[in-house]
């Protein structure tokens, strides 16, 4: 299950990252480390991107990126 599948208002936990190399590092640097709690804050009126609360900051990711983050509810 990926972050993109999570619904607004849900809190989920990161279990892994599908990306590799520098793309992977980018997610890690933003705080999407396995074990981190993420809250799905809101969706853009046009559907994409979605804002997530991660480690105290609100970060918006596009669907293509959010689909790389594996989560569990």
């Amino acid at each position, binding site marked *: 299950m990926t972050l993109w599948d999570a619904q607004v208002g849900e809190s989920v936990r990161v279990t892994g990252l599908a990306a590799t190399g520098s793309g*992977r*590092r*980018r997610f*890690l*640097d*933003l*705080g999407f*480390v*396995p*074990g*981190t709690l993420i809250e799905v804050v*809101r*969706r*853009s*009126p*046009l*559907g*994409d*991107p979605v*804002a997530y609360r991660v*480690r105290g*900051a*609100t*970060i*918006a*990711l*596009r669907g*293509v*990126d959010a689909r790389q983050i594996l989560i569990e509810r």
Partner: protein
Amino acid sequence: MTDSDHRETVAALQNDVSRLADKSNGDRMVTALYGRAEQIASRTVRQDAAAPSGRLTDWIDRLTTSRILGLGSMLAVLAIILWVTIAGANVPSALLATGLFWIESQLTLLFQAVGAPDWLHGFLVLGVYRGLAWVVAVMLPPMAIFFPLFTLLEDLGYLPRVAFNLDRLFQKAGTHGKQALTMAMGFGCNAAGVIACRIIDSPRERTLAIITNNFMPCNGRWPTLITMATLFVGGAVVAAQTTIAAAALAALVLFGVFVTLTVSWVLSKTVLRGLPSEFTLELPPFRRPAIGRILVRALIDRTLTVLWRAVIVAAPVGGITWLLARITIGDKALLYHASDALDGFGRALGLDGIILMAFILGLPANEIVMPIMIMAYVGAGAMLQLDSLSALKTLLVDQNGWTWLTAVCVMLFSLLHYPCGTAMLTIYRETKSVKWTLLSIFLPLGIAIGVCFAVAQTVRALGLV
């Protein structure tokens, strides 16, 4: 150690590491770093009760990014900013104009007192000085209002929400969501908008944003657009006129956005192909802006520097225009020779020769397009402005055959044509490429010609005018 020994040791070390290193080391290290950060924070940071203002940001965001009201509220913010800028700039512009033209009359007296030749007075005072006075009177008040407002929004933290709302459109067009922000900056001044494109990291997407920035009407074009919009509406109350002006401008802006996205889409499929770059947008909590500091900052940084550059570029044009209107070949001034030559082409576009001439001469600064146009119609030897809208209407409609189609085509041409001289120079400085600079000039021109032609021919074919 000798150099080759060195290299061997380095190579050996590198090999050993490659055997040792585990691919997941990077992950584990970052996790360890975060773990330690969490540990330190838990020991040194204390949060008392529920933070009230975190809720405030959340609450506001529910409006600014909501499904129904999000886009609508953005439009409302746009309309309000336009309205305030237009309404606020009216009186100061008039005052500035009066003041600067009073100075002109004093200059004339001075020239007369020293017995300076007519042509010198004409060139310097009626040409160069008047052109300058025009640009300042027209450009300064709206900028002095718009830029602080924009900076206020920036400081508040509103702009990332705009990017958040519109990013999907930009994704589809093959560009970066931050382009929404550079476009917003282009409202005040296209040159400033082009510089703002530095916030886009990927060169491909930055170039796209730079080339299309022109489709946002800068402050310099507002007078032309506003005058055209209100021309065919009755005199009525001033307040209503401002609302109409703001509404018309907003509509043009939306059209400009549409053109921007379309052109971006086409360019990203043709000459500026490439992969979409990363998009990470942080939505910071709303902060109370430091209003005093902003006003000073916006005034100095943005308004005055932009004004200065425009003045330098526009001053010569005033002089040149005066010369063109004065120097005659045969029975006509050069100006009219040119406008006659352009007339056929102009009419095909729903315009006429004089309008095209005005746009060409107005290349350095958009503000002087209207004055040049009026001057040429009136047959005066120098730029002038008419005092009332009805006088203008008489001049254009009754005496020179304008119709609503002409006004619409002028608006479209003004919105689309090409960036002003300052913006062109800025584009070259930012892209360091002749190719992209030329494209950013001729692509909009081509589009302007194409759109006006299409509109004019369609409207005529349908017998609507």
